[in-house]
């Protein structure tokens, strides 16, 4: 696992990759080249990047509908991700999943779930498997403030706690579920306050600060690997974009103020980290710009790859439903 400068630059790179990836997604939705639904992670990059850089390749993550940041943070391939979004055969899921369902089992990305909170029990199961097989692999399960009100969340956290499983429940509290403020739906002040109900540590982290996210996750990972059980991390963060691309067009009333959005834009995770790199003499502006340029190129390349990739074939429809296939009706 990278350390020191290598780590810090990797954080920068991955945050920038996500940003550029999702800005491209925005454009593609606007031009109708990308069909279906897409939920951008812009503004929240530090959360997944800080967390996933605390993991080994063989560790696991599960994610949700806001779905591009998690796999990219875990080292996912932006080409295959972009191809998936365009429904191409070269995509992560051969075009069968689309934006909300990226997965790369080879590097522990156990997949994103479009059903809110539905991946949490799966994450618990992966941790069970890890423990039963005597590996020390840990699992991070990403979920939103909205998801925290689902029953699945309760059951998953309790199971993980009583069985002391190596799971980190990482709540990305971007403060809204679609248009509904978490203050109106979560009965405690913070989602992490609920950790006491499961006898696990609950840690509130600044989700705009990739270094803080990383550090908090490192602790939780240590705890998990040591067999001490799960942790609930809550990252306070913000999404700049609509809940999903294009949704605001049909919104009758704004649900958040321009000031609020602006406040959070001032706390941009990439800016904060860039500044930190500069102020601590970790990297020069040129180095940062170079990462930026590399990332632009990588995403440009990914888009080209996706565009040039073939669509799946009719015959592909009839595969992948079962491992031991049966005739389809």
């Amino acid at each position, binding site marked *: 696992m990278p350390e020191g400068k290598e780590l810090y630059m990797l954080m920068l790179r991955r945050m920038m990759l996500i940003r550029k990836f999702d800005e491209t997604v925005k454009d593609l939705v606007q031009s109708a080249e990308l*069909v*279906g*639904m897409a939920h951008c992670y812009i503004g929240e990059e530090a959360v997944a990047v800080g967390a996933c850089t605390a993991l080994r390749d063989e560790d696991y993550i599960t994610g949700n509908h806001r779905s591009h940041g998690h796999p990219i943070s875990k080292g996912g391939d932006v080409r295959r991700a972009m191809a*998936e979004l365009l*429904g*191409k055969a070269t995509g992560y*899921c*051969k*075009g*069968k*999943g*689309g*934006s*909300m*369902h990226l997965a790369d089992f080879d590097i522990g990305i156990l997949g994103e*779930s*479009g*059903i*809110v*909170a*539905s991946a949490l029990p799966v994450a618990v199961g992966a941790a069970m498997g890890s423990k039963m097989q005597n590996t020390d692999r840990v699992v991070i399960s990403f979920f939103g403030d*909205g*998801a925290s*009100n*689902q*029953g*699945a969340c309760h059951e998953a956290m309790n199971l993980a706690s009583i069985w002391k499983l190596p799971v980190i429940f990482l709540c990305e509290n971007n403060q809204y*579920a*679609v*248009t*509904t403020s978490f203050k*109106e*739906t*979560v009965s405690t002040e913070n989602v992490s306050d609920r950790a006491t109900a499961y006898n696990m540590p609950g840690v509130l982290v600044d989700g705009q600060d990739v270094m803080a996210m990383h550090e908090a996750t490192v602790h939780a990972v240590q705890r998990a690997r040591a067999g001490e059980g799960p942790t609930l991390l809550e990252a306070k963060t913000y999404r700049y974009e609509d809940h999903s691309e294009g*949704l605001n067009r*049909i*919104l*009758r*009333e704004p*649900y958040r103020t321009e000031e609020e959005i602006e406040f959070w834009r001032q706390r941009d995770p990439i800016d904060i980290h860039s500044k930190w790199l500069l102020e601590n003499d970790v990297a020069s502006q040129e180095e940062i710009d170079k990462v930026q340029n590399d990332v632009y190129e990588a995403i440009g390349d990914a888009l080209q790859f996706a565009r040039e990739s073939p*669509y*799946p*074939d*009719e015959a*592909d*429809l*009839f595969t992948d*439903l079962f491992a031991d296939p049966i005739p*389809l*009706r």
Partner: protein
Amino acid sequence: MGEITYSDALNHALKEEMRRDEKVFLMGESIRGGIYGVTGGLSQEFDKRVIDTPLSENGFMGAAVGAAAVGMRPIVQSLASFAWVAMDQLVSQAAKMRFMFGGQVNLPIVYRWGLLYGNNIAAHHADRPYPMFMNMPGLKIAIPSTPADAKGLLKTAIRDNDPVMFFEDNNLAGSRGEVSEDPEICIPFGKAEVKREGADVTVVTIAGTLRPALAVADELESDGISVEVIDPRTIVPLDTKTILDSVEKTGRLVVVDPAHRSCSVASEISSIVSQEGFWSLQAPIQRVTSLDCHFPFSPALEHLVYPNEDKIADAINLTLE
């Protein structure tokens, strides 16, 4: 009378019924902002009777049962794919409570389920679970396919004293049609509508498949094939008589249902007709359904799963062979 959209027709039904009866209220996720179209403007007029909920479908769909049990008339809004997380309250409470308690309680609840499919929405958002609910006693099920049916059936659902599963086909959201402005016009449950008369083949359609079926019927007309198209509108209760009468006339039946094939409404209607209309049938009944395969995201694949005009035309032709 005027042409309005399917969405607006639903909106009007809600508005009229909420004005008529103050026990009617609405619950759902982010519905006050009207993000999903239909509820736009309602929070302004009815304020506290339009409730934004947390993401706790099992919780609030069960709360609807409790509220109904003590005299309210809740309407709950969600997407069909989110029924899975709430299944226990829908089945164990909404569907079973009245019978189990010997008829002590009425449960006037409408669960409004958006049906998304055919729009590259992928497997997690594309469910069409109405055949499953049809296998569960205690639930009435309506699936309107035109603006007029949408309004008239929703009004009936709201006034009905039993839990109603009301499926709204989002593919029809922007489709337009004549809709009466008379607030007393309700469409009774259990009355199919012959959407197009014909003599040679009966086509029964569910939800959004009415439109491609009508298009095919128009096309085949020029080949001299006369297709009768029937929309049952409610599948519980199911108007078997209208369907059987039609098959008696035509001797041929195609059932089109966007649900997966096995144990679909198409299967049910087919098995009813093959039993009760056996002696009228001059050819095997054909089912046109979604394949028993999840909806793939890719635009290159999705349409292969779903019933479409070609498949409907082929099925009709098969019955005429």
